[in-house]
């Protein structure tokens, strides 16, 4: 099994943020922000040193909790520091973005890293539909078209026009194409049947975030079945689980840490937006089987441990190894992508956890 470090680049004073989204820019202090990014990159560099296989980046907006609104920019900066790990873009929010621009960024990143890129496709959380004014009801359609367009743009050697439902381009001719041919590994992050089926039918990997193992197993069970029906079998690296972690020297220390924080932090249940905004987003997505649990995945409050379900791995090394093993054994996960920047956990503490994970956990999960 492999481990990935999620480079969240959280603003170090994020514990002062209000519980609502978006976080007003008034909370931004330039000096703190610059230091936070430097510390975040130090964490990525140290994760590589301690043996992590991937460093990942995820697009999130209007909040300093995961401060990578432009993940390609972050990935490029970290790739200059980290020369061995794979750079995993997990990923760009396709409903929000120009897919051709995404393809260009991915092509550049694979060249800049000399073939170390891993691509991830994401729909994003409901709040983020607001970022660029996308109609939430169109998110799924924009995701599917975006995936098709990016895959075509990254593999097509001749210029073409694209007449889509959401995108129209009369000239697409992406330069540079990826170093990895025909494509870098691609992970589709989803729990939705139609998107899981898309991944299986296109021989793409699958990413699942923040759910307990029994829920992930239900998703990967379908995925493996549909892959078999499509005539192929995924490699272990093609099944990724993203989860939040707090790792201490002992189980007791970790439990005590959590106990101190229980009841602290934002209201349980997901992203806190203004009530009418939440209703509008949910209504817009209602026809698509909206599930409030979705908002935990990568949400601005995904790093909130005031509610235990926001934390997937907690304990000393032995317990965390077992927790990770469960995702391997029951879900077929071959890569675990870990979010360390819990609220109230400062840079020094994250570095301690990375060190401990590299010494006590990583060697053991490699044996799975």
């Amino acid at each position, binding site marked *: 099994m492999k481990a990935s470090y999620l480079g969240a680049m959280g603003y170090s004073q994020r514990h002062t943020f209000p519980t609502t989204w978006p976080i007003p820019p008034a909370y931004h202090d330039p000096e703190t922000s610059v230091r936070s990014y430097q510390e975040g990159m130090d964490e990525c560099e140290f994760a590589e040193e301690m043996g992590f296989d991937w460093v990942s980046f995820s697009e999130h907006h209007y909040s300093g909790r995961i401060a990578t609104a432009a993940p390609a920019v972050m990935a490029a900066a970290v790739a200059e520091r980290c020369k061995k790990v794979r750079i995993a873009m997990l990923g760009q929010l396709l409903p929000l973005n120009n897919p051709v621009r995404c393809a260009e960024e991915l092509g550049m990143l694979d060249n800049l890293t000399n073939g170390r890129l891993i691509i991830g496709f994401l729909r994003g959380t409901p709040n983020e539909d607001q970022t660029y004014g996308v109609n939430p009801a169109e998110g799924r359609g924009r995701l599917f078209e975006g995936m098709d367009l990016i895959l075509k743009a990254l593999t097509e050697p001749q210029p073409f*026009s694209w*007449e889509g439902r959401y995108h129209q381009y009369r000239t697409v001719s992406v330069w540079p194409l990826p170093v990895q041919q025909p494509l870098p590994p691609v992970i589709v992050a989803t729990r939705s049947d139609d998107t899981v089926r898309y991944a299986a039918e296109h021989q793409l990997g699958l990413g699942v975030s923040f759910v307990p193992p029994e829920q992930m197993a239900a998703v990967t069970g379908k995925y493996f079945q549909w892959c078999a029906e499509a005539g192929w079998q995924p490699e272990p690296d093609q099944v990724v689980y993203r989860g939040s972690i707090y790792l201490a020297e002992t189980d007791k220390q970790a439990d005590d840490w959590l106990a101190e924080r229980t009841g602290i932090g934002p209201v349980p249940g997901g992203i806190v937006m203004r009530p009418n905004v939440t209703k509008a987003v949910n209504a817009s997505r209602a026809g698509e089987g909206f599930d409030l649990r979705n908002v935990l995945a990568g949400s601005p409050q995904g790093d909130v441990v005031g509610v235990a379900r926001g934390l997937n791995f907690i304990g000393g090394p032995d317990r965390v190894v077992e927790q990770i093993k469960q995702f391997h054994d029951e879900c077929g996960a071959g890569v675990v992508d870990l979010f360390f920047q819990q609220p109230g956990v400062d840079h020094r503490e994250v570095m301690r956890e990375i060190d401990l994970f590299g010494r006590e956990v990583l060697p053991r999960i490699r044996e799975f």
Partner: protein
Amino acid sequence: MVESDSRDLVVMLGPSRWDDSPLRDALAAKYNVARMLLTRDNLLGEEDAPRPVQEVAESLIRAMDRMAPEGKYTLVAGSTAATVALWLALLAPEAVEALVLISPVAVLPTGNPVTAQPDQLVAHLENVAGVLQLDTGQSEALSALIRGGVHDSELEDRLEQVPCATLAVFGLSDRMISPEAPRVYREKIPNSNICLIYDAGHAIVADRPQALIDTVMDFVERRDAFVVGRQSSVINP
């Protein structure tokens, strides 16, 4: 004879009369549209042997000369008729001013075998009703075209000589055309564009009629300059 009309002439070529095609309706609203029908009679020779496509094209050129002497036109052809259309463009460069190929199967590599089964022609089964229906004579003509071979190696060798602006339109979910085929048109035809219609099968007109109409209409009007955007992005002027 093509009816006298000051509007530009668009000739639609195929085994189908395009009667039920919304593309024909859209073109007819703006252009003088003529139909050039491929029939069993002009596709088959003695003992029902398929005639060489080049020969078929030559006979059509003669027919067009009679119908519209010195006429210049944009030629629109679909699927198996694309081979004939390309020969027309090569043999009558003074007449064919622009060429639109819809789901052409004129070059290798092809995808799955060419078929007329409607459910194989659409990306979504619910769109089957939009597939152009062929009568017996049209079906025989299509069969003759297929029997003659959809791949013409001599034509493929001469694609670089196609002189006119050419648009080749493909459904991204076309099961009859290999995903590698569209680029061959772009590589070989000097002044060409390929357009991929998302979420459409071989019968693009059935799956995404408006997308096809908008693309073809824009190209017929502006030829290769259709790559220049002209949709306003102003929200509140």
